[in-house]
């Protein structure tokens, strides 16, 4: 192969390079590149053909024999013969071939595109050594059912010391920081690494060393490790960077090494790694004072189930030892991939199942076309049989045709997939942080899948057509070629195929209908605030200039005043938690006058730090009391605002205003009650929330919420300009409108809606084409019978009804089967649905109605033709 490909490829390359020198424009260059790539591909295929042909059949001796000297009995020659014959037959009937190819190419293409994403997200190994042994620790509050990824520091220390399932457990935290001293300050992603994190991930240094446990000890000199990409990008791969000081935020840190390129969490860039302090023991009163994330590496041979059994025992022990913080708290480990992929796994598998159904429908349709075609070729088959061809040879011929069709469709499908996969990735929610997603490609595994799907497809529809070949009817076909009809088997097979198509289409239609109803319900949900005309923008001020709460409060006051003075700005507020992004941080709630019994854990309510302007900007209604205002400062007594749900739950028959609750700063007075909002997600029930005043202790990093009178996108430059005028070193983080945030929270439902809707439309169309084909055939077959009926006095309506009745029988059977299958299949949608049951009668009825209408429409053409049959001509033909 090499001796053929190499010189031929060299010729291609020379021609390409010569043409490239003559090319005058970029367009011409691009064209040349595409042509070159296509020619190399064709050359590779041709080399394969030439070498296989030369090896297997045509060149057993040297010098080469003349073409007539081939040995027809050799298997390869037979294969080539079948393939050529199949190709000729397919080219002879371009209408059939194009219809079948288009149907299959779309079906295969959709499957390949979805599989490419599944491969990248679910199958491709994560980029760590022994990645399947990595797990993320999580904990679940059994009282509320809420699951969180962060681990209370006290629990982390105890779990790390007592567990026996993991080789190591390491704490980490992700953040952002500003680097000064290298031109303009620039923003970097930081990974706070607890002792052992980089060992757990098996990261190696490229230069210098990585972090050591001593680096995390309080009081040691601050150090940092540079990420590979940052070292290349910002420090020009300087080999002498080790030992230099780099100012990260308020502190200068010594660079001790450069790590190899890696990402952690798997989709996050790591620019800088700094040591994260983890205390050796956790003091009882600070157990929940700090919440790192934790990643663990399973011991070799230990399964995730074993680890979870171990963690369950430890969780129970901690519940008994620290009931006030750990009651009903359960720790568990989730494989790293599952933690990264989250809900998308179910959505992707659902999608794969849906495209699989579309392909099945496509196969059923092509099988129907093949059966109809084999009928038309009955005479050809009969002649072949009469000349001695066995049934096996005819079946082999039909299978060769199917294979030829399916493989061509597979190639076209791979092209469809290359185009479709980009659109699919663009549709995926931003919350899907699988590292493979940035690199979804049609690689060897995907092409293998394409080949597998193509061959399976060929067998599926080819066998149905092949099974209709019968020896005994051959003589009939020869004697009376004009009266060739489908055998009973073939007739039943085509009707059964259409029934299956309709049933499958109903399943998809019901799925799409249920998701559509969920989506409509989600759109109608009142989140408790108004998301329109609100711009949100994260920002951070340098911590060395704003060291204390007073200086930060001063900045916030100046910033608020400057922003409010801008035209188009109505209200300005800040908050820490962005609504509708899944955040479910909570805080214990305890009335000072009704303390929780000793040994019991206080209930938890949602946690938010917000300024008074936040409520105005989001138009969260004030129900009682007041919002936070200028009178709340770092030096005044602690105050809080509660949501109505807190009022109802903890102060059912009294006013909450003026009551005291326990907070981190001591007793805090409730000064206001605001409306409930759906904070984490639109599907969330409105939860009890506790708001702490941003005015009392604004942080260095916060999110701005600005209500505008015009389109919010337009005010962004003026917002940034006003803030930069106050603090030139301010760093701006992500900026987007609150409407975009709300839309993003519905993206999984939207994606499912778009795709299932698309698949449902395709399958209805295919099913309609299928029933049209069958009914057309039925009408052709019964033309004489219809002619006789008309001659005997049947009206056009009677004839039309005759045809429609047969179509209706097929449609009814398919619909009944489809509805039954839908009731089972739609259960897999439960996680995506909102406010609608998986067996919603309205959706089932509308889906069935739509499909029956589509089949009715498809039957109209054949029925119309039947009604116009001229009895005189038909009977005369007899």
């Amino acid at each position, binding site marked *: 192969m090499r001796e053929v490909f190499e010189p031929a490829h060299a010729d291609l390359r020379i021609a390409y390079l010569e043409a490239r020198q003559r090319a005058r424009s970029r367009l011409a260059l691009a064209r040349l590149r595409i042509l070159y790539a296509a020619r190399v591909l064709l050359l590779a295929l041709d080399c394969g053909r*030439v070498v296989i042909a030369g090896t297997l059949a045509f060149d057993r001796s*040297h010098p080469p024999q003349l073409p007539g000297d081939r040995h027809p009995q050799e298997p390869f020659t037979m294969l080539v013969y079948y393939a050529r014959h199949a190709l000729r037959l397919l080219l002879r009937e371009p209408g059939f071939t194009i219809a079948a190819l288009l149907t299959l190419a779309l079906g295969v293409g959709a499957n390949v595109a979805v599989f490419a994403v599944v491969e990248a997200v679910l199958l491709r190994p994560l980029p760590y050594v022994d990645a399947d042994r990595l797990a993320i620790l999580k904990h679940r509050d059994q009282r509320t059912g809420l699951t969180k990824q962060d681990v209370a520091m006290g629990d982390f220390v105890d779990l790390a010391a007592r567990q026996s399932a993991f080789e190591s457990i390491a704490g980490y935290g992700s953040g952002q920081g500003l680097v000064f001293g290298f031109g303009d300050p620039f923003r970097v992603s930081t990974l706070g690494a607890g002792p052992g994190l980089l060992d757990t991930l098996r990261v190696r240094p490229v230069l210098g060393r990585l972090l050591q446990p001593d680096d995390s000890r309080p009081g040691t000199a601050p150090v940092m490790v540079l990420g590979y990409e940052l070292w290349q990008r910002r420090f020009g791969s300087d080999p002498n960077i080790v030992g230099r000081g780099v100012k990260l935020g308020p502190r200068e840190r010594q660079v001790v090494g450069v790590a190899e390129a890696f990402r952690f969490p798997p989709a996050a860039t790591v620019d800088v790694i700094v040591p994260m302090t983890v205390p050796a023991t956790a003091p009882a009163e600070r157990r929940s004072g700090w919440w790192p994330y934790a990643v663990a590496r399973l011991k070799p041979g230990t399964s995730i189930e074993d680890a979870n059994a171990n963690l369950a025992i430890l969780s129970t022990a901690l519940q008994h030892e620290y009931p006030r913080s750990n009651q009903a708290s359960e720790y568990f480990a989730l494989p790293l991939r599952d933690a990264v992929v989250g809900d998308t796994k179910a959505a992707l598998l659902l999608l794969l199942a849906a495209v699989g159904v579309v392909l099945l429908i496509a196969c059923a349709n092509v099988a129907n076309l093949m059966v109809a075609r084999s009928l038309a070729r009955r005479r050809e088959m009969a002649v072949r049989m009469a000349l001695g061809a066995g049934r096996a040879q005819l079946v082999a011929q039909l299978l060769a045709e199917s294979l030829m069709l399916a493989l061509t469709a597979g190639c076209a499908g791979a092209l469809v997939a290359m185009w479709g996969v980009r659109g699919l990735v663009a549709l995926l929610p931003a919350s899907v942080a699988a590292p493979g997603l940035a690199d979804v490609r049609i690689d060897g595994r995907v092409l293998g899948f394409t080949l597998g799907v193509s061959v399976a497809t060929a067998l599926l529809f080819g066998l149905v057509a092949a099974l209709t070949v019968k020896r005994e009817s051959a003589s009939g076909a020869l004697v009376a070629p004009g009266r060739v009809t489908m055998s009973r088997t073939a007739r039943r097979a085509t009707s059964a195929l259409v029934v299956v198509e309709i049933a499958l289409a109903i399943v998809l239609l019901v799925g799409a209908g249920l998701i559509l109803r969920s989506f409509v319900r989600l759109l109608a949900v009142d989140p408790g605030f108004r998301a329109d005309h609100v711009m949100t923008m994260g920002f951070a001020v340098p911590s060395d200039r704003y060291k204390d709460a007073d200086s930060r409060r001063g900045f916030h006051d100046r910033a608020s005043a400057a922003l409010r003075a801008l035209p188009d700005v109505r209200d300005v507020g800040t908050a820490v938690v962005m609504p509708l992004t899944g955040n479910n941080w909570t805080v214990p709630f305890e009335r000072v006058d009704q303390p929780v019994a000793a040994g019991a854990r206080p209930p938890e309510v949602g946690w938010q730090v917000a300024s008074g302007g936040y409520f105005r900007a989001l138009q969260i209604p004030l129900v009682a009391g007041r919002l936070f205002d200028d009178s709340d400062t770092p030096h005044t007594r602690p105050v809080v605002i509660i949501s109505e749900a807190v009022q109802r739950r903890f102060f059912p028959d009294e006013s909450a205003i003026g009551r005291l609750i326990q907070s981190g700063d001591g007793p805090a007075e409730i000064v206001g009650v605001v409306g409930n909002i759906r904070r984490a997600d639109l599907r969330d029930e409105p939860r009890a929330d506790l708001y702490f005043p941003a005015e009392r202790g604004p942080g260095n990093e916060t999110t701005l919420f600005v209500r505008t009178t015009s389109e919010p996108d337009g005010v962004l430059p003026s917002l940034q300009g006003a803030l930069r005028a106050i603090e030139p070193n301010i760093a701006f983080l992500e900026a987007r409108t609150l409407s975009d945030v709300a839309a993003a929270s519905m993206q999984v439902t939207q994606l499912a809606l778009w795709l299932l809707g698309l698949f449902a439309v395709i399958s209805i169309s295919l099913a309609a084409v299928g029933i049209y084909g069958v009914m057309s055939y039925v009408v052709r077959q019964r033309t004489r019978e219809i002619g006789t009926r008309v001659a005997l006095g049947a009206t056009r309506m009677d004839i039309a009804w005759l045809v429609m009745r047969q179509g209706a029988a097929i449609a009814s059977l398919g619909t009944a089967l489809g509805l039954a299958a839908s009731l089972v299949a739609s259960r897999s949608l439960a996680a995506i649905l909102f406010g609608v049951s998986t067996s919603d009668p309205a959706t089932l009825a509308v889906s069935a109605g739509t499909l029956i209408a589509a089949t009715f429409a498809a039957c109209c053409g054949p029925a119309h033709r039947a009604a116009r049959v001229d009895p005189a001509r038909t009977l005369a033909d007899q």
Partner: protein
Amino acid sequence: MRKPRLPEVTHLQFLVLAVLQSGERPGRSLRKAIGQYGVRRTAAAFYQMMARLERDGLVEGWYDQITIGDQAVTERRYRVTPAGAAAWAETRAFYESAGLAAARERWSDA
């Protein structure tokens, strides 16, 4: 005189050997030259034929580096071996003698 026997090379191989009589050539120039005789072979089929001629010792092939613009490329060049030259001469002699014999035959009939 040796008794003439059927040549071992095909017409196409004879043509290739004939073109190479005038000196060594790169593969693509050789392909172009035989194209002038109406021979249409895909690059793969052509180089497979050349590989067989090399295997049988009738031609010798080697890679030569050339530069186009700033890119270095290697191309396959070929020359005829003594065995190839002998095979070509033998084939040519065969057809010439067969042609002459046929002509003699016609004259004697007349």
